[in-house]
């Protein structure tokens, strides 16, 4: 029987696991969280009885059905709280190294998996551009605010501003309103012309797919119901306060997202939620050796197969497409990973559904993609890397002083991206800003997405695992290369 490993239990991973099981494979499904559903179906733990979860979640029934089928299937092993910390590429194949237990645990059991096929469905997290004051308590990434609202039923503040770019701002505002916050406004950086290029002037219209339409229409209705103003061509360009956010400055932006002087206005708020798009979590795909496209998504063929034999990818790491695309891609990937044919009846519907969403990522980029003028709201002392407290001014000075064209060198000289988050928050911003200081761009061909150690591991855990592995395989690999 084919053994399929699915990494990530969001919509794409769940769909992949189900399709692989239905195609006759045995499945191991890993997720770093302690429950299934991913970011999209983030919910209260069962112990705290999800009363009316369906009110906060679109497609909640679909999730329950998926989850139940997997949990009841004898061929499916579901492993929550599983941190994949490394994927080793031996000549014989991939070895997936996993620790099971809380991320901060120090004696987590380790497992090494050598499946016949892998589906990587690690999703994305939201990207936040820095602005003065973004390190104040009370500033949240929209994803974090959404997670608190959905997973904890906690609103991040009483008077909340939502800002950034992209359709994700709408569900975040809706969740906040549902948990009792007063949402003072949603500020979308893109201007009408860009939005029209991607969608139509209203983002909840014209989304290609009816389910998307229904979902976004309900957010729009929620906005109307909660009287949430939606302003385009505006951004939060600063947050103010001593111990936490007390005010934000909102300004109009030009088409390049540069703030227009004289349009600033202050708003009293105790929280601000910001998202400027998504960063796919591609470090495991990179570790597995998968080819990455120039737009930094994992390259897949029409079967969701990556450039590495036996490795499939689905969901947001292959392009930001939303839940429907993720479900379709996951099903196609899982079916393929189990050895199923590309045009089997089992996946015919998914192939058709995926086709509906093929241009979604391009439309989001056209409508909401980050424009270069945003650096206009930075100040020299604005922190870019919060872990290592590296301000924008130091990035520029170091770039100019050294004339360096090496990302690695500049990171080591400035320490940007070297902190505990390993550039997950700031990496792409750091690359963007450093690239601007070096005409001709950065040459060393590396990226902040490369993290061979994908999640922190205790030295004690590493030492405990020593000698337990098939060192013969490693030795064989080594000798071949001499």
């Amino acid at each position: 029987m084919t053994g399929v490993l699915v990494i990530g239990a969001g919509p794409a991973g769940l769909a992949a696991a189900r399709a692989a099981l239905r195609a006759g494979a045995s499945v191991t499904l890993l997720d770093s969280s302690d429950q299934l559903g991913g970011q999209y179906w983030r919910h209260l733990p069962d112990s705290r009885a999800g009363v009316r979860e369906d009110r906060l979640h679109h497609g909640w029934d679909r999730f329950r059905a998926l989850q139940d089928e997997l949990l009841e299937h004898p061929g499916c092993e579901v492993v929550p709280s599983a941190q994949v910390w490394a994927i080793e590429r031996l000549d014989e194949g991939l070895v997936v190294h996993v620790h099971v237990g809380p991320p901060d645990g120090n004696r987590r059991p380790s497992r090494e998996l050598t499946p016949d096929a892998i589906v990587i469905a690690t999703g994305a997290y939201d990207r936040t551009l820095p602005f003065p004051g973004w390190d104040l308590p009370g500033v949240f990434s929209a994803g974090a605010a959404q997670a608190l609202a959905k997973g904890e039923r906690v609103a991040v503040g009483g008077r909340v501003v939502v800002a950034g770019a992209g359709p994700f701002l709408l569900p975040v505002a809706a969740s906040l309103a549902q948990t009792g916050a007063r949402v003072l406004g949603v500020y979308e950086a893109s201007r009408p012309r860009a939005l029209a290029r991607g969608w139509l002037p209203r983002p909840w219209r014209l989304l290609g797919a009816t389910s998307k339409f229904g979902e976004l229409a309900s957010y729009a209705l929620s906005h109307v119901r909660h009287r949430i103003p939606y302003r385009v061509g505006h951004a939060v360009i600063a947050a103010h306060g001593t111990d936490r956010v007390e005010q934000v400055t909102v300004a109009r932006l030009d088409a390049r997202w540069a703030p227009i002087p004289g349009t600033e206005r202050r708003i009293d708020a105790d929280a601000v939620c910001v998202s400027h798009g998504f960063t796919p979590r591609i470090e495991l795909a990179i570790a597995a050796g998968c080819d990455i496209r120039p737009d930094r998504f994992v390259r897949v063929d029409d079967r969701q197969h990556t450039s590495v034999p036996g490795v499939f990818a689905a969901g947001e790491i292959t392009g930001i497409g939303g839940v429907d695309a993720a479900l379709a891609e996951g099903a196609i990937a899982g079916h393929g990973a189990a050895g199923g044919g590309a045009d089997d009846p089992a996946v015919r519907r998914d192939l058709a559904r995926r086709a509906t969403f093929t241009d979604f990522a391009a439309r989001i980029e056209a409508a909401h993609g980050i424009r270069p003028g945003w650096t206009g709201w930075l100040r020299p002392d604005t922190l870019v890397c919060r872990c290592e407290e590296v301000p924008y001014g130091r990035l520029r000075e170091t770039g100019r002083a050294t004339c360096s064209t090496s990302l690695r060198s500049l990171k080591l000289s400035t320490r940007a991206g070297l902190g505990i988050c390993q550039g997950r928050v700031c990496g792409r911003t750091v690359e963007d800003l450093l690239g601007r200081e070096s005409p001709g761009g950065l040459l060393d061909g590396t990226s902040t997405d490369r993290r061979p150690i994908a999640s922190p591991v205790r030295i004690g855990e590493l030492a405990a695992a020593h000698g337990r592995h098939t060192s013969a395989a490693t030795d064989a690999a080594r000798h071949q290369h001499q």
Partner: protein
Amino acid sequence: MTPDVVIIGAGIIGAACARSLVRAGLRVTVLDRNAAASGTSASGEGNLLVSDKGPGEELRLAQYASSLWPDTVAELRRELGADFPSLEYERKGGLVVATTPAGRDPLLAFAESQRGAGVDARVLTVKQALRLEPDLNPAITAAIHYPEDAQVQPVAATEALLASARLGGADVRVGVTVTGGIRAADGALVGVRTSAGDFSAGAVLNAAGPWSGEVSRSLDASLPVRPRRGVVLVTTRMPHRIFHKVYDADYVGAVGSGEAELQTSSVVESTAAGTVLIGSSREQVGFDNRLRVSVLEELAVKALRLFPFLAGASVMRSYGGFRPYMPDHLPVIGPDHRVPGLWHATGHEGAGIGLSLATAELIAAQLTGGVPAVDPASFLLTRPSLAALVPEVA
């Protein structure tokens, strides 16, 4: 205008040579097919060690380098200003310990021989060692303190040397690949062909580190430099609990070994940023940079022998790189006797950061007819230990 010297490689060796040569009045162009400081110089800990070298020419070179660093750091700071990233130069001292009863006597004897060669190597009792490093494993069997060992941030040092060379007139071209040599009628090398056109030069200096074998081959002269892979683990930031470069005496054996299979020995130290670096491994696997979990595990086991408290520390990152390995464990510094016009400054294995300044002075002295501070004979390709490995050019 034709440069006097074209340097191939903008790592720390090329950067240091560029600076020394412009200060000696030569016109210099530095070429790198990638970015500066993006190879071996960005993959190590920044060791400036005398402690790991036994009496001999390499130790003399290391002692000379050690004498050059403090003044050079001060000069660079004056030249480049306070905005330039700090070199984080620190003469923090090394502490070398034996962790087994069998390791005790060889370490003491090694230190004794070093003292004979002028190294400040102080034998400590376990109690004294624990005063220097309170969290050190008290089960160690011997400890030597080397106050001369120092550390530098290798990337910042490389960029600083290069920036200084630029101020002195050096032309640094990155993203330029050397494709071959330009020969005069008498066979002398008078320049290089590159992806960005031809560069004529009075001399061509090969400072391409682990890739210098490849570069040398493209100039029709073989060189037995091979890549030797190493991996360093980086922990999350923590309160400062490790104060010296602390390493297991078996490190000296691993450095000196010619074995191709994995060798690890523990080297542990903290950085100015608060992380702890854990090395070191040595493997000959070509330019294969794939992560190997068994190597990480072995490093972890050995680090705990020195500092048991590290069991609870988290590794957030690892980085690997390639050292330029010479089969007789000595760098090549000087002219290639087979090809007039070709020079080498390479093969320093893991000691290149520390030895860079001394290497550069040796190259400058030989190129300009000055008197080298250290006898260069042991670093020439004509040395007896390379006799079988350096074929005459066909």
